[in-house]
């Protein structure tokens, strides 16, 4: 009679995920529920255990335990402690990690299991000018934009371009200063080394609206996000007038 060694599985085994391009510890973000990733991104996950005698099986189901259509999610890995999962379609999923002793059939009832939920979002950004007020041209110092992604938790890189009233184009590459929904970027108009320090706003009595183009937006996992454009609105200062007398 084959001896079945019942093993008390560590059901609370944590799962650590990290990005494909950077060895970022995803323990916190990916070990609970409600995690968001962007469609098209690839994450690596690993079982947080030092036990070498455990084999693993990585399974992805829909959040409601349904079958995931072929091609929607690609899981590379298997019986090792790590898996690479590429999220190819938006939706809510459940990542299941089954673990068993090497000499225990998968069918044994002492298979341990842990799972967590992943929400796959269509890549998108919401960019908002967070200036409290539209300032006068003479007072423009910095303009900050909140960059709120639809998913993901990392920083974003992007290229930007804006043209002033002298038809001079200013451009640059930037990285958000925060992560996830806290991501933001501040454009500096008035320090001596600022790219935008010479930004020209003609005088007048109306507001000036400039289009800030944001392109080539990518997260740390190489997921491209849509291009954006947002209005930068600056109040003009009055034109120069000459006092005359009769």
């Amino acid at each position: 009679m084959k001896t079945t060694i019942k093993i008390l599985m560590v059901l609370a085994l944590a799962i650590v995920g990290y990005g494909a391009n950077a060895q970022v510890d995803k323990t916190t973000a990916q070990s609970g529920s409600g995690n968001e990733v962007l469609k098209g991104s690839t994450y690596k996950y690993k079982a947080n255990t030092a036990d070498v005698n455990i084999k693993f099986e990585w399974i992805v189901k829909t959040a409601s335990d349904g079958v995931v259509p072929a091609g929607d999610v690609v899981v590379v890995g298997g019986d090792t402690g790590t898996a690479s999962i590429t999220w190819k379609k938006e939706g809510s999923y459940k990542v299941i990690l089954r673990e068993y002793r090497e000499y225990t059939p998968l069918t044994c009832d002492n298979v341990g299991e842990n799972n967590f939920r992943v929400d796959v979002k269509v890549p998108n950004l919401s960019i908002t000018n967070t200036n409290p007020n539209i300032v006068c041209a003479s007072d423009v110092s910095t303009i900050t934009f909140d960059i709120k992604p639809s998913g993901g938790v990392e920083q974003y890189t992007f290229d930007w371009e804006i043209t002033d009233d002298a038809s001079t184009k200013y451009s640059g590459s930037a990285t958000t200063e925060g992560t996830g929904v806290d991501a933001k970027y501040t454009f500096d108009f008035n320090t001596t080394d600022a790219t935008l320090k010479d930004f020209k706003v003609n005088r007048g009595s109306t507001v000036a609206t400039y289009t800030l183009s944001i392109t080539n937006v990518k997260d740390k996992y190489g997921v491209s996000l849509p291009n954006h454009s947002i209005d930068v609105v600056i109040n003009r200062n009055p034109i120069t007038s000459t006092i005359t007398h009769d």
Partner: protein
Amino acid sequence: MISKISLMLLMMTMSFGVMAQSYNTDAQTGVLKGSTYKYRVPLTSGNTYTWTITEGVTNVTSDNAIVSVAVTNGASYSTIEIKWLKAGTYKVNLEEATSHDCKKTQNAFDVIVIEPTAVNFNVTVPAAACANVMNSFVVKVKLEGVTYPYTIEWEMEDDNSDKHVGTLSIDNANETDLAITGFDVSEGSGEVVKQFVITKLIDNHGFEPNVTKSYDVTIYQNPANITIQHN
């Protein structure tokens, strides 16, 4: 009674006053104390205009009797009218703000106000002549030591107690003719002396030297009508 000629002269003077409202950027280094000038900039609808006057770093206002000001914002211009009451060196300053309260301090305009110098009159009245000749005559007026144009107000009363009054605009340093017509002198065998009086002198900017000048005009009376009798 004001003669027709005098009225005509008055109307011409009024017309001249309107035409004189041209504006320029010339520096003002010799504004006569007591003069009134207007300063203006093109107005942008919706903007606000704050005019101030400074002497050095001190704000000058009507309250300290150095200037008297009135600001008007018309359809096309924001204008400040300043009567300079004290000699000094001033700046007319303007801050313009948009409806969004974006501001621009316009370049100040420098004004130097000086004490007025004496005005020299050179008035030539016609030589004495008979009344029938002097019914219409010309007075020649010349002003020296002033900045033109000037307007004088004058009066002269004839023997019918008709007070001829009028204004005369003097635009340059040349003699300017003032024609007086319908001047009645009673008949007799002697001569009468009438006064041509300049009652007021005022320049185009309201500078008004306090002068009254009187010039005698001698007119010989014509004989009275007599009736020819026959035997």
